[in-house]
């Protein structure tokens, strides 16, 4: 295995998207997860994502070979030793992230930039467990990483300017537009989209309109590519709920109270596209089965 300058930790959906985006930029990347099996499952996920893109004529078979040849699965965190850029994309859980950064602090070069990919958590709180809080920065990529052209670069209280500059370079390497966010719960994208999704759920729960009509109205009325309920399904209803609870806890504002319908669906295990059922129904490839909503 060659020495890749970029390493991604966490081979879930976000890690896969990041690895594909790095590889698309022509760079090699190591994709690390707890076991080799999990890391390899991540590679398989990337291959499937590329296949979907080939099917839509966005990539070719030779692109696929080249993209996959630059991504190396691994279960060995010590691979981060020589990396210049480390991106963490493990589940959105403060304790998990803190313990990972504690380990990375012991492994990584002193000049390495350590990036946490989070949508709501405090960069400063994560950085506090390390001896190098200046080198820790947040980058909030949105799913699917290869398609969404914007990233929020989140400065913690102690993030130094050089680290910020390197995060900007990394964003530009991946061909993303970036915005700067000064650490505050929910940043920009999550904070604004979450109440909108929640309100759409309230409108549905209160019987004002069907799920389909709510989405149709918002798409056509405001030029959204995807309606709010379909968007929540894509994000994962459990994820949306955890963001809301996070914002509620941090900001203590009623508007972040998850809609009871959202709680009900999450409790029933209807988490959206990934479980085949949320506000709408989906087949194994994640395609909408019918425009009919499940809650009518």
């Amino acid at each position: 295995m060659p020495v890749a300058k970029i390493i991604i930790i966490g081979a879930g959906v976000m890690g896969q998207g990041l690895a594909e985006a790095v590889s698309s930029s022509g760079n090699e990347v190591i994709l690390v997860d707890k076991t080799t099996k999990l890391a390899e499952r991540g590679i398989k996920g990337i291959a499937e994502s590329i296949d979907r893109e080939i099917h839509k004529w966005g990539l070719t078979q030779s692109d696929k070979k080249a993209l996959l040849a630059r991504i190396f699965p691994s279960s060995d965190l010590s691979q981060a030793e020589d990396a210049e850029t480390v991106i963490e994309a493990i589940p959105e859980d403060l304790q998990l992230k803190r313990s990972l950064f504690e380990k990375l602090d012991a492994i990584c070069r002193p000049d390495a930039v350590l990036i946490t990919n989070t949508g709501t958590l405090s960069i400063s709180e994560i950085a506090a467990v390390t001896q190098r809080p200046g080198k820790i920065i947040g980058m909030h990529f949105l799913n699917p990483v290869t398609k969404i052209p914007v990233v929020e670069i989140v400065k913690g209280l102690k993030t130094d300017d050089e680290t910020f500059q390197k995060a900007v370079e990394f964003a530009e390497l991946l061909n993303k537009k970036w915005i700067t966010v000064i650490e505050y719960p929910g940043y920009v994208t999550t904070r604004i989209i979450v109440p909108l999704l929640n309100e759409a759920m309230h409108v549905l729960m209160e019987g004002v309109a069907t799920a389909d009509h709510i989405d149709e109205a918002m798409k056509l009325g405001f030029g959204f590519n995807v309606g709010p309920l379909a968007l929540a399904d894509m994000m994962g209803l459990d994820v949306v709920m955890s963001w809301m609870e996070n914002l509620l806890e941090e900001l203590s504002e009623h508007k972040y109270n998850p809609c009871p319908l959202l709680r009900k669906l999450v409790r029933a295990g209807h988490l959206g596209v990934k479980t085949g059922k949320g506000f709408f129904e989906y087949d194994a490839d994640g395609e909408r089965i019918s425009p009919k909503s499940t809650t009518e």
Partner: protein
Amino acid sequence: MKILVINCGSSSVKYQLIDTDNEIALAKGMVSRIGMSASVLTHKPHDRPEVKVSGEILDHIVAIEYVVSMLISENHGVIKDRSEIQAVGHRVVHGGEKFADSVLIDVELMRELRNLIELAPLHNPHNIRGINACQKTLPGIPQVAVFDTALHHSMPPYAYIYGIPYVLYKRYGIRRYGFHGMSHRYVSQQAAAMVGKPITELKMITCHLGNGASVTAFDGGVSVDTSMGFTPLEGLLMGTRSGDLDPAVILHVMAHEELSLHEANTLLNKHSGLAGISGVTSDVREIVEAANEGNSNAKLALETYCYRLKKYIGAYAAALGGLDVLVFTAGVGENSADVRRLTCEKLEFLGIALDETKNKETAGTETDISTSGSRVRVLVVPTNEELVIARDTQRIVEAQQP
């Protein structure tokens, strides 16, 4: 002057070290499969057998480093030290409206080139990568960019303007630019020498048929029209590119298949052409084989390819008001007798008469393949873009020296 000529593709670097004093390529070669497992460097010194080395070549910088080490290596090298390389000439696909000639590369030019990426998404990024790689590997050595587009600056406005609001031309430079300039220029000059007439007296059509393909109409040695346009996508049907298309088609497909701009772009550039129609391959040799074996889609792809080319020849003969010389060049043009025959069929009224035997027997050599009675000389001329790049590079570098 010893000049390293570089042509960078997405996963390949083609190179030649040319001594312009005697116009000999001291060595030529190619690095392929860059960034993939088992990259291959093929190197051929002019006076020794070819060598092949495989290894891991991750990017263009490593590739150029390999090339330079090969050029100075004890067993396979052709020079003693890298300092013998006096200049580097790069093929750059799109020079936009600004560059009517080759230019010396500096910081300002690199910025201009990056601005032009949108116009040639398949090529310019790789050309830039190659320039960056050479700046790292051969610091301080003058580098020159030679553009595919420069030749066609002589096109009259009525040939380059599109039938859309003129303000879009002023705002974004949307017009036809044309490509393959080095190849069309080289073969037109060779062809004039072959027929033994001054180029200024000839009406000529040159067909560059490679992976990309284009036709150029020369009036007295000056390009007056060419089939590629704003990008290398317009014109002939190509290996994986659609060529001419009703623009409404792509709007319709984008709407119905919910394609992004990127997906639509890749659809037209990489999934279309011979590969798209045949569903088999983008390679003309394989298309011809498949067609002969009865594959109807391959046959259709081949017919479409030649029919489109025939129409362009007819159109340009009309634009020129006559025709003296028709030239076939590049991979397909030099080697596919089938394509040449199918294209020239029914063009007897223009004065084109192909000598069947000569056509069949000609592959990759300068040959007149028309009958002795043919009013139009039909020539096969192997192209040599590298030599054009080396000559231009020398001219530009020498002009810089006090």
